[in-house]
């Protein structure tokens, strides 16, 4: 197994290795909150990061399975395409921003704007999320096992949000929707696949009222 100690190896050297000769498993120690660790990978490698990471860890990830045994700074797994990123601690703001595929699992809490502009990624947060989460969310699923802050799903498009705990004020055009059998089954599979334990029957579903999809003067107050 390849090993990089970021007290002695630079992030540049690590990322170049992950781009040029990715294979098998790789461990990263002493990340020390450094930014842009393990971003831009396009290979089915497993990367274990032992400690806290700074901004944009695992950005634009494809195929790789990345585990962060610590907290993650802003923009973890931003624009993720495929593969998975697991944060064992808490995640700062913009987690999974504009993600287009794959999975982001946050075992702790996520801060504000979790899943902002998401475009197909599945995000599962075992804890709670901050305000404006799933803002402009287009596709994919955001699962919140704890509580959601205010303005959840503001200006949401076709993404689906599941919340187990309390929800603050909903954002513009975001409404609670029926949990159909298909939604229950899909959520059950997602929780099982991501290894997050929660009773699927405790969740409520939120999505778009689709009132803002085309401008309508009678809905001007909703903007």
């Amino acid at each position, binding site marked *: 197994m390849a090993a990089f100690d970021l007290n002695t190896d630079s*992030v*540049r050297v690590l*990322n*170049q290795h992950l*781009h040029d000769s990715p294979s098998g498993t790789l461990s990263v120690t002493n990340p020390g909150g450094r*930014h*842009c660790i393990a*971003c*831009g990978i*396009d290979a089915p490698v497993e990367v274990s990061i032992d400690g806290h990471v*700074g*901004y*944009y860890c695992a*950005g*634009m990830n*494809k195929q790789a399975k990345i585990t962060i045994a610590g907290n993650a700074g*802003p*923009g973890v797994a*931003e*624009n993720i*395409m495929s593969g998975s990123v697991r944060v064992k601690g808490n995640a700062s703001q*913009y987690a999974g*921003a*504009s993600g*287009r595929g794959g999975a982001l699992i946050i075992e702790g809490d996520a801060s504000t*704007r979790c899943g*902002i*502009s998401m*475009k*197909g990624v599945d995000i599962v947060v075992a804890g709670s999320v901050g305000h404006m989460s799933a*803002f*402009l969310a*287009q*596709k994919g699923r955001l699962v919140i096992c704890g509580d959601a802050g205010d303005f959840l799903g503001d200006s949401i*498009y*076709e993404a689906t949000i599941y919340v187990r705990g309390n929800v603050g004020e909903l954002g513009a055009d975001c409404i609670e929707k029926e949990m159909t059998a298909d939604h229950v089954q899909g959520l059950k599979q997602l929780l099982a696949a991501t290894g997050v334990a929660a009773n699927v029957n405790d969740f409520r579903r939120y999505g778009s009222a689709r009132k803002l*999809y*085309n*401008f309508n*003067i009678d809905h*001007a107050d909703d903007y």
Partner: protein
Amino acid sequence: MSHNKSLRASATFSQQVLDEIHRAADQGIYEIRGFGAKRSLPTFDDLVFLGASMSRYPLEGYREKCATDVVLGTRYARRPIKLKIPITIAGMSFGALGANAKEALGRAATAMGTSTTTGDGGMTEEERQSSKILVYQVLPSRYGLNPDDVRRADALEVVVGQGAKPGGGGMLLGHKITERVAEMRDLPQDIDQRSACRHPDWTGPDDLAIKIQELREITDWAIPIYIKIGATRVSYDVALAVKSGADVIVVDGMQGGTAATQDVFIEHVGIPTLPAVRMAVEALQELGMHRKVQLIVSGGIRSGADVAKALALGADAVSIGSAAMVAMGCNRNIFVEDYEALGTAPGYCHHCHTGRCPVGITTQDAELEERLQPEQGARWLKNYLTTMVLELQTLARACGKTHVLNLEPEDLTALTIEAAAMAKVPLAGTNWIPGNNK
């Protein structure tokens, strides 16, 4: 109507203002349109060159070499962009434009040895294949953004704003959202797509510096990273873009075009290109970064004279969008009945937002798109760019320059007090630069 001396129009409530109030009362929504600012603004036309005579030595107009090449992105990138001409093609989205138009832009740019740019909607295969040098925009919407296209781009452009609407996001109305456009943007068909005005994963220049670091890491520090701003607080924004780590800064003045934006935004937000160039150059000079971080200026560039004046004020290159579309047939006097169906006429059309472009540029309608064949569009644009370069060289030679980047503010004088103050060159016939306390 026959002349009636008792009729007196109001300067405040002109016929145009009256029409707009009536329209607003009928529809209850702001006017959305394409193209750029239509109001009269101080422009490069208000500057003229001081050709060489006794004190300066001109170059032989048709024979002596006057180089036009420019290198962009020399600050950090391992592979800077090398252009044969200092005129680039601005970002215009697939969605706003049809695939044929995007391909034509790429073909013409490639033929001229310059770059073209993607837009809000991702990179199409047609434009990647037709563009030898392609700048890939990273926009707030992140529509279609993916690491494969990031890695096959020749440069990245982080779009903070654009001249037509600084502080505003993009807009693509539902009737232009075909299945292909919708799929690229991960959104349903037929809905009005209002792109975000802020990036989803950074706030402010400190974050942006780290965002740029991420993009460099993903691309192994190979390609240049541009930052594009709409011209407003140019001095601060340029300084912050330098601080954020830009290789190249694009400053887009308020004459810059758009495919669909509120008219009130187009006409009332931002500053003209003329002062924006000078402010950007001053900011770079104050930081000791002029020519180290390259400056591209856009917004209402129409001719070789405009290019020459922008370069003389200190820009390294310019970018054209609206003018490129005009070269490809925008507002050309053909298919008049289709202009009329839109309630307009050749010369007045700004109906890019409708998707019913009479000349097949800003449309996703297959029948209309057929009207612009990529080969023909590219030919027109190549001819236009060639003309601009010849004009640029003509003016540079007249000022005694062996390279167009050797043009300088001392080669210019202003015809109006406003232009003198904005460009900080003397009013013609004087040594007076308004605002300079000397």
